[in-house]
């Protein structure tokens, strides 16, 4: 079984490019060039240099001793939270801003949910001196205020998405409309492993540095490259795709995905796409999607803005469908509790998105010798207000 994208951007039955003709020239230009550009020596050199000196890679693989004792297995944390700007998102934006420059684009647009991708995009635009416009749902603007302020300070314009559920899905719609309106000078930096081909594959390749590092880091610590499990939370699925990438075809490595169940999978307020979705088309790709029987996309809910998305990247739909990955979902309460636990056992405040990955221990029991690597996708600074309200800390 192949778990990577084929030439047309399909992972099994999922993926492809279901785009209106207005987007065809841009998407086709990218499709025809992305691999060639990405694997040029000069591109790789610049990309790796920036990841090292600017992002601070490699990110540590940290053995979490107290968390391991608590849950009776060997837990390693891949510290994407220590990256510049505080999440894995910057791996992708560095790659895409270099890609945009190679394509001669001068104006950058992005969508954002939690604001992490928006900040990561605004950051690389400041770095390269390019104009930056970030679309963000009105609801998310309110719940992720610190990131809105960071984007503005970085010189980006934050445009509110006011339609639909006013969250990530709608911000993505607005970004796509902007691209239709500005087809010549603009590159759209999608922030997750979603969208029309080649985006899911391109984003996955940029994020694959995560699992590339895990391999040699684990070898140093455990004497073997392959853990027993890799665990990640899934919004659109970019930190997960990067964490899984080099293990996809290593059958002894168990792949675990944790989605956001919101107030409960069957509460009507959830974002657990694999449990609630059916095959459909969202934002230019065929994938698992939460929708009505009539094919209208439904409005998801999660306490974490970054997981509040009704679809999932096509790679993950394929991993789900084929059974290659185990899918779980964690409620708001489980994610918040797991976030607090990590904070108090290890002194690390995770993003609420990331808290969902740590809620795996409420759902799955690991064996004593199991080596479990968890993607610590981001830090919780942006979520302090939500934590304060939730745990009545003030």
């Amino acid at each position, binding site marked *: 079984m192949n778990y990577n994208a084929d030439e047309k951007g399909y992972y099994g039955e999922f993926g*492809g*490019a*279901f*785009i*209106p*003709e*207005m987007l*065809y*020239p841009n998407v086709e230009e990218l499709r025809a060039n992305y691999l060639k550009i990405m694997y040029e020596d000069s591109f790789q050199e610049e990309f790796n240099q920036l990841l090292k000196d600017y992002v601070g890679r490699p990110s540590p693989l940290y053995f979490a001793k107290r968390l391991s004792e608590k849950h009776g297995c060997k837990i390693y944390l891949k510290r994407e939270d220590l990256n510049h700007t505080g999440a894995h998102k910057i791996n992708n934006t560095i790659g895409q801003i270099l890609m945009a420059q190679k394509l001669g684009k001068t104006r950058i647009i992005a969508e954002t949910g939690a604001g992490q991708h928006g900040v990561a995009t605004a950051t690389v635009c400041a770095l390269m001196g390019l104009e930056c416009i970030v679309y963000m749902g009105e609801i998310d603007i309110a719940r992720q205020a610190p990131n809105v302020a960071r984007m503005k300070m970085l010189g980006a314009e934050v445009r509110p998405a006011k*339609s*639909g559920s006013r969250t990530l*899905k709608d911000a993505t*719609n607005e970004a*796509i*409309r902007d691209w*239709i*309106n*500005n*087809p*010549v000078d603009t590159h759209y930096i999608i922030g997750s492993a979603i969208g029309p081909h080649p985006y899911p594959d391109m984003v996955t390749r940029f994020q694959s540095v995560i699992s590339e590092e895990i391999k040699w880091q684990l070898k140093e610590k455990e004497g073997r490259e392959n853990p027993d499990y890799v665990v990640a939370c899934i919004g659109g699925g970019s930190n997960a795709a990067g964490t899984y990438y080099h293990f996809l075809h290593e059958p002894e490595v168990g792949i675990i995905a944790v989605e956001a169940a919101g107030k409960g999978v069957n509460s009507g307020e959830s974002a657990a796409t694999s449990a609630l979705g*059916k*095959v*459909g*088309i*969202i*934002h*230019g790709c065929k994938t698992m*999607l939460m*929708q009505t*029987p*009539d*094919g*209208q*996309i*439904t409005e998801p809910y999660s306490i974490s803005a970054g997981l509040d998305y009704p679809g999932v990247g096509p790679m993950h739909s394929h991993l789900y469908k084929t059974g290659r990955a185990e899918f779980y979902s964690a409620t708001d309460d489980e994610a918040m509790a797991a976030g607090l636990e990590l904070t108090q056992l290890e002194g690390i405040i995770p993003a609420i998105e990331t808290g969902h990955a740590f809620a795996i221990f409420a759902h799955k029991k690991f064996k004593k010798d199991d080596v479990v690597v968890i993607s610590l996708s981001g830090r919780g600074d942006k979520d302090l207000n939500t934590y304060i309200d939730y745990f009545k800390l003030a």
Partner: protein
Amino acid sequence: MSNRIKSKLQEDKKLLSIYFTAGYPSLNDTVQIIQDLEKNDVDMIEIGLPFSDPLADGPTIQESSTHALKNGMTTELLFDQLKDIRKSVSIPLIIMGYFNPMLQYGVEAFCKKCHEIGIDGLIMPDLPLDVYQSDYEAIFKKYGLLNIFLITPQTSDQRIHQIDKASDGFIYMVSSASVTGSKSGFGQEQENYFERVAAMNLKNTQIVGFGIKDAETFKQATKTAKGAIIGSAFIKHLTANGITKIADFINKIR
């Protein structure tokens, strides 16, 4: 019977086509709007099947779609409203929508239903050419439905020829790089584009859409093209005046 779109394209005049969102302003206005448009000499109608996330549309059509869905519009209900439409209406009818609702209904079931009702063609902006050709063309043909493709000012000549070859009927020529409803008037750039396409000697005629809102833009758009489609401006008219004054709008166009 030959397709009504093809017969209409043979007529010696510039065609006026109107888009509206089914289920807007009120859920059951669909048939009345269609009948009134025909009565006022509109040549062709695009019936919009509303979608929750219309990527290629600007605020006017987004809002009418959201409204229509809130009113309770569904694919099944639209087919039900249209089931007797051919008893009273003879101009070409096209359903325009996004691909996901069609996919969920079942592409074959959807096409079959369109055929039974007397729909002549479909416009599905996010069903790309290559997927259509590999997976669905045979089904569309079986039910006598023309699939209408879009081109834009950014579409390369090579791609336009490819689309022309795959098309049967007309090509939907998007007037400018924009979502629906966002352009005010046509400039030199549009004129150059219209003339470039006209000079390509395509086998299919072109009908221009996006940004046409009044007599002036209709005239500009149809200087070289066979016809033009008005969408957002008509919906704005319905929003402001309801469905009883459709003649006022149409009579101002030509």
